[in-house]
């Protein structure tokens, strides 16, 4: 897996926020929203980023496009480290790096027509004459399946699915190479969700786009991703090929997530492992492995030492990394798909 150079390489990224309190609003604690995340993204690839609320997945996405300032670590986009880049130097790179947000109603300026919204990126980057920009807007609307007349209308005149298409058109405007999709279909009804997912997949094929696809929906993330990273409390706990993650989940948290998916199959007698307890807060994360308070297999080692993300596959297999001290017996928590489990179990 080392042939093409990665388009994005994030190394040990940390984004911490001060928590202010008291009458002087002094910093009383630190919220470690993203706490040491590393991964690579290849050209044309989709990396899914999945986790529950508060796990830091959106903060990670926003830190990569520098909507938030990272505390430490590097974000190499096509070889340039964005983490430390100043505003002036960042601007020309931003065209290649776009973002799609969850709620199109909130991310589109309600007082601008769709045409103005789509023209803005061209103006900001000083691209084309007014004539050329208008032609580009028509092309963009065609690409995302909206009528050209839409340019003269306002966002509120469109349905949720159509508004998300406008958001996608805006992200596409400057022919980016990487798009961070932050919950792009979570606010949409299922019949519309599939339309938007198809559109994203079509655009990826046509323009050879890389996606970082952030979602809490495990079925959606499996559908769109080549590889998937599972986040928990600011860290990646498992990173693997998409198929392999669901067939052989290694981390107890991933297994809990997969078991909790409500599959549209009545009375599916899937073995359930429903974790108890709530997500701990990233302000005061537990010591050791962040998952240990909810983990049924936790030992003293887990309570003491944070496990590093380590490779568990042999060189011939697709990469599958997990941050767990143990190679848990797959039989202990059966896979939800009932895939044949003839896994090596070195240790428990």
């Amino acid at each position: 897996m080392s042939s093409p150079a990665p388009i994005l390489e994030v190394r040990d990224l940390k984004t911490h926020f001060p928590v202010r309190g008291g009458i002087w609003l002094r910093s009383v604690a630190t919220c470690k929203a993203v706490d040491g995340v590393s991964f690579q993204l290849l050209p044309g690839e989709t990396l899914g980023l999945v986790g529950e609320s508060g796990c830091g997945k959106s903060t990670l996405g926003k830190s990569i496009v520098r909507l938030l300032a990272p505390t430490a670590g590097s974000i190499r986009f096509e070889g340039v480290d964005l983490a430390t880049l100043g505003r002036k130097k960042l601007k020309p790179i931003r065209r290649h790096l776009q973002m799609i947000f969850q709620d199109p109603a909130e991310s589109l300026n309600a007082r601008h027509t769709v045409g103005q919204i789509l023209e803005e990126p061209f103006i900001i980057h000083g691209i084309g004459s007014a004539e050329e920009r208008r032609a580009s807007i028509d092309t963009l609307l065609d690409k995302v399946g909206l009528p050209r007349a839409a340019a003269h209308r306002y966002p509120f005149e469109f349905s949720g699915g159509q508004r998300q298409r406008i958001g996608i058109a805006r992200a596409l405007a400057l022919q980016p190479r990487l798009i961070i999709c932050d919950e792009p279909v979570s606010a949409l009804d299922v019949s519309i969700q599939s339309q938007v997912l198809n559109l994203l997949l079509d655009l990826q094929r046509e323009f050879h786009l890389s996606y970082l696809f952030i979602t809490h929906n495990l079925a959606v993330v499996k559908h769109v991703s080549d590889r998937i990273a599972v986040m928990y409390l600011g860290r990646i706990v498992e990173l693997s090929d998409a198929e392999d993650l669901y067939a052989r989940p290694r981390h107890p948290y991933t297994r809990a997530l997969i078991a909790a998916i409500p599959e549209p199959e009545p009375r599916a007698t899937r073995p359930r492992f429903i974790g108890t307890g709530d997500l701990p807060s990233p302000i005061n994360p537990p010591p050791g492995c962040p998952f240990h308070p909810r983990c049924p297999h936790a030992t003293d080692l887990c309570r003491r030492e944070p496990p590093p993300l380590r490779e568990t596959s042999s060189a011939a297999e697709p990469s599958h990394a997990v941050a767990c001290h143990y190679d848990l017996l797959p039989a202990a928590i059966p896979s939800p798909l009932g895939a044949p489990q003839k896994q090596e179990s070195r240790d428990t």
Partner: protein
Amino acid sequence: MSEAPLLEVRDLAVGFESGGTVARAVDGVSFRVARGKTLGIVGESGCGKSVTAFSIMRLLPQPHGKILGGKILFEGQDLVQASEAELHRVRGGRIGMVFQEPLSALNPVQTIGRQVMEALLLHKPLTKEAAWAEAITLLDKVGIPSPEVRIREYPHQLSGGMRQRVVIAMALSCNPSLLIADEPTTALDVTIQAQILELMLSLQRDLGMAIVLITHDLGVIAQVCDEAVVMYAGQVAEYGPVEALFHRPAHPYTRGLLASIPRLTTPRKSRLPTIEGAVPALNEMPAGCRYQNRCPYAEARCALAPPPLEAVGEGHAVSCIRWRELPEFKPVSPAAV
């Protein structure tokens, strides 16, 4: 189904007044809920599922929302005709309610204990001390750890899942025979959602109450419900036992919905089937079938008259005049990994 159902909704029509016109958000909806069973109502935004639920509790937004016609028979009593005093006894008494967002269902400036006690004291002749003790028992029953501590806390001190447990405890306080849950897990994370659904089912087993579960998530319906009603544009498109609905869906809309959800077994990055177009606006409903503009099987006669509900099988009915002629539905087989 010889026994009288616990709840029977017959030909319910609900409208919202605005600027002199009335938009019919729910138009001729009928279904029954048997004692101790779970009925799901599923549909997309604006299909009228929540309006139906709010009508059962007579909690439509006032003054615009109005029940235009139909009957809501609950334990033999027509709630449409019930007086405000009678409704007070039913709501929170025989019918418990759980809403989507627990934070807005709870009072932020009162302790958990006071809020749970309020429901108890309203419906039961209890002393404050007895109500306090019972509130602790209830919180324990819904799986809140150390309830005697939590009972003194405020809603903001609890997580989303814990808050929803408190709301469920309040809904259960008077042993309702029916629990109406409107998107109870939509605001929660998947692992917490699974916990809350498990809790609702286990409480149902213990207490024998019926549940009406409103959701947009077909997965939740499949996992939790005995029967389900699929709503589209204010009407019932199809209803039946979940097994029949998911394996032998008769309405093109139900089929479209089932096909368009990505599942764990869907081949990755394949094109998903879609439902083209959008739901017509309430004031632009076509004559005839309301799904005709999106339906791949629509033909001229679909536009002539609203399709009646026809029986397809045991307890399974569909509102489509062409259901007999549709090609066989191919369920996504779990083997196709």
